């Protein structure tokens, strides 16, 4: 069930109507949302709903057992059991083929050709999101920062909640379960803001992300050798804005749906291309995922207090790269960011040791740091977008081929790229004001804006609609 479909519109409308009808019966509302969430997931692939059930049951039972455990050893065994099951499921569906083909490749270079086939398994949609979301619960219970959930329905809804199950935001149990424990009153203003957020998300996705992909990014990455370095550089910039508009658009839709249903989800983005360092970028980009890795992996490894902080950082960033997808290009992407973050930390420590003041947060020095960070991110994303490391290397090489002068930039591509840049750098309070203005409009005007937007967006849709992060 694509978000940009009649089916989704009718599904969401029905859920909204039932949510309204059951507003005074919170338990029935939660049951309805759970059934709706499983139906939503099964519209994508009914076979993998069993995985959602498995992950839910394992983590629910593990959470309860950890809380009831009498010895630290017992607690640890239950944690290991939950981690092994969830990460095992993830590894089997997402990483097994990559591992097998990598080993076969290495053996082939040594002259050994084993008769092993890759499984070519279908990737269950949202697997990286719902496994991590439920693991955060078990880890928090283990650390004693979260009480075990007593209501299996609440926990099942936390894992399968349809606005987040496909691509996050990875919501922590302590952010969401309390909302299920107390009756969430429906407020008109929240519902209207939710609707406006969804509309903003669709506009970001269809009018910006998809247009940039079609007019600039896809042609450049399909045949980089056909284009000039300028076109390839603009396509790399374009991809950064495409993926931002795509994923933040999805997040707006997810947050808008949840808000309209009476729930709050975490912010996932904070104008990431205003980051003045790569470390700062990861505090602004896909915040729910980067904070997960910070809290559960980086701190788990010892953070900056125990062990070698640079090793811990590198391992965390390689894991972040690999979380996105199985491939050497994703490992290289994570490692590149890890190296830059290590360098930034070393420089900061050194300045502190030498008694120098921290780098300024305003003026030209700040501007250059923002520009440099954006370029590091945009150029490293070539590895993220390319099919494999070899293709990424070709793209980089073609960016230096100044003999090629073909720069077929369409007005549409330039306008969309420029608008994306402007919209990204506009103060956030302006976006808030637009949402508030929309909320205050008469209903007929809201209806007219919705219709016009849908017509406008339909005119731009090409092919089967999907979001980049649905592939992770």
């Amino acid at each position, binding site marked *: *069930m694509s978000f940009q*479909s*009649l*089916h989704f519109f*009718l599904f969401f*409308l029905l859920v*909204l*109507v039932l*949510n*309204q009808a059951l*507003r005074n019966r919170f338990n029935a509302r939660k049951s309805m949302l759970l059934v709706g969430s499983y*139906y939503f997931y*099964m*519209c*994508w*692939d*009914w*076979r993998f709903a069993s995985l959602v059930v498995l992950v839910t049951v394992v983590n629910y039972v593990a959470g309860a057992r950890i809380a009831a455990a009498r010895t630290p050893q017992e607690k640890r065994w239950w944690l290991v059991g939950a981690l092994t099951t969830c990460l095992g499921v993830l590894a089997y569906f997402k990483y097994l083929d990559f591992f097998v083909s990598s080993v076969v490749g290495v053996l082939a270079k040594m002259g050994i050709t084993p008769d092993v086939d890759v499984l070519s398994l*279908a*990737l269950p*949609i949202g697997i990286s999101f719902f496994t991590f979301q439920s693991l955060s619960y078990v880890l928090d219970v283990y650390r004693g920062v979260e009480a075990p959930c007593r209501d299996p329905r609440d926990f099942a809804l936390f894992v399968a909640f349809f606005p987040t199950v496909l691509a996050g935001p990875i919501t922590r149990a302590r952010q969401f379960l309390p909302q299920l424990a107390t009756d969430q009153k*429906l*407020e*008109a203003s929240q*519902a*209207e803001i939710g*609707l406006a957020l969804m509309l903003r998300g669709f506009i970001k996705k269809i009018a910006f992300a998809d247009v940039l992909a*079609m*007019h600039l990014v*896809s*042609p450049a*990455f*399909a*045949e980089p050798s*056909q284009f000039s370095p300028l076109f390839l550089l603009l396509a790399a910039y374009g991809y950064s804005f495409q993926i931002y508009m795509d994923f933040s658009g999805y997040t707006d839709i997810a947050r808008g749906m949840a808000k*309209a249903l009476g729930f709050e989800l975490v912010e996932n983005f904070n104008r990431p291309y205003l980051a003045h360092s790569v470390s700062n970028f990861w505090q602004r980009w896909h915040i729910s995922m980067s904070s997960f890795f910070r809290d559960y992996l980086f701190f788990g490894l010892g953070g900056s207090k125990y062990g070698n902080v640079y090793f811990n950082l590198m391992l965390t960033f390689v894991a972040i790269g690999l979380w996105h997808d199985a491939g050497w290009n994703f490992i290289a992407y994570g490692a590149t960011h890890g190296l830059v973050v290590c360098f930034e930390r070393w420089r900061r420590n050194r300045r502190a040791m030498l008694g120098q003041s921290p780098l300024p947060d305003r003026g030209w020095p700040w501007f250059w740091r923002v520009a440099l960070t954006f370029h590091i991110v945009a150029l490293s994303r070539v590895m993220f977008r390319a099919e494999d490391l070899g293709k990424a290397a070709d793209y980089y090489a073609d960016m230096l081929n100044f003999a090629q002068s073909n720069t*077929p*930039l*369409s007005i*549409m*591509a330039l306008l969309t790229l420029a608008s994306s840049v402007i919209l990204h750098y506009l103060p956030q309070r302006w976006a808030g004001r637009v949402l508030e203005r929309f909320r205050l409009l008469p*209903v*007929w005007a*809201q*209806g*007219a804006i*919705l*219709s016009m937007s*849908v*017509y406008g967006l*339909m*005119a*731009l849709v*090409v*092919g*089967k609609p999907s979001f980049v992060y649905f592939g992770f």
Partner: protein
Amino acid sequence: MPYRRVFQALLCSVALFLLVEVMLQIRSQLRHGQSVFSAVAAQKMYQADLDTGLVLLRPNSTFSGSEIVIRSNSLGLRSPEIDVARTPGSLRIAVIGASTVMGAYAASNEESFPALMEARLRVLYPNRLVEVVNAGMVGYSLADQRRMLTHRVTVLHPDLVIVYPGSNDFAGYCREKEVRTEPPRQGLPTLSLPNWLLSTEILLKNTSGLREVPVPSGDVVDAAKLDISTYVAELEQLIESSHKRGMKIVLATNARAYRRDQEPKLQQQLSRTARFYNHCFSLEGLHVLYERHNLAIRETGALLGVPVVDLHNQIPGGTRFFVDSHHFTKQGESVAADALVTFLTQHDLLGTFLAKTAP
């Protein structure tokens, strides 16, 4: 009620959609005599023939709009009534194809090119009963045309069958590509927008420029490398079917409005509907696609000894001869009829029948 305003806004939005759609359906009913109202009133223009599975016109009906009137015969074809039993000494030709043959934009049956051919042949052979059966039907692929030949045309015992294949098979390449690139998911059944919605169709047709890709990308099918062997096989089967039934066959290449020698902007404009129906091809890709398929028609004809009328080269492109990318204007229908009649007479394709059945 917390959601009151949200529901009201959604309701307003849906009401606006419905209003636009109803207006467009009324316009379609007035212009073409067909709309969703006809379907509701069980007065649909097309229906599946229970015996053959072929989608045909509702038999013995008249579909009147302000611009187009379509009259169907008892066989569900846009043709005059045809007696299955042949009149001795008559000449009967059947033209098989898709919407271009049926005359999607021909104001009346008499303005479609098969009917114009009949009129011209009757002038040329005043002492004969000449019948040209219009066996073209909207949306037909080559496979459908073969079924039309075996199930509907054969019983009419035509002396000659002319096949103008049209371009409906091309859309299949885009569908194949979608199936290939789709992840192997098994979801529950989902609803999609009904295909009779005119608001979406008109919107998409008139905004194809917004979705025009300046350069080919990975999302566009490379027409030069496309495997067209299935099309060729279909064509061969069609010819073999006609030969088996003792019917002489003539093939025609597909003409199109947009040509390489036109200004790029004009090509873009004229290829709009072609790009709408074959969205996985760029303009250049469509040129290549047409050229490759026309070449396949010529080569298959040469291989199997079937004469080929090169309509592509005989009907110039442009708005004078084409309403959209493929369908003929009144003048286009006329030129097509002239070209076919000239070809048949110059190549003496009718001589055998005329001599055989001379009174």
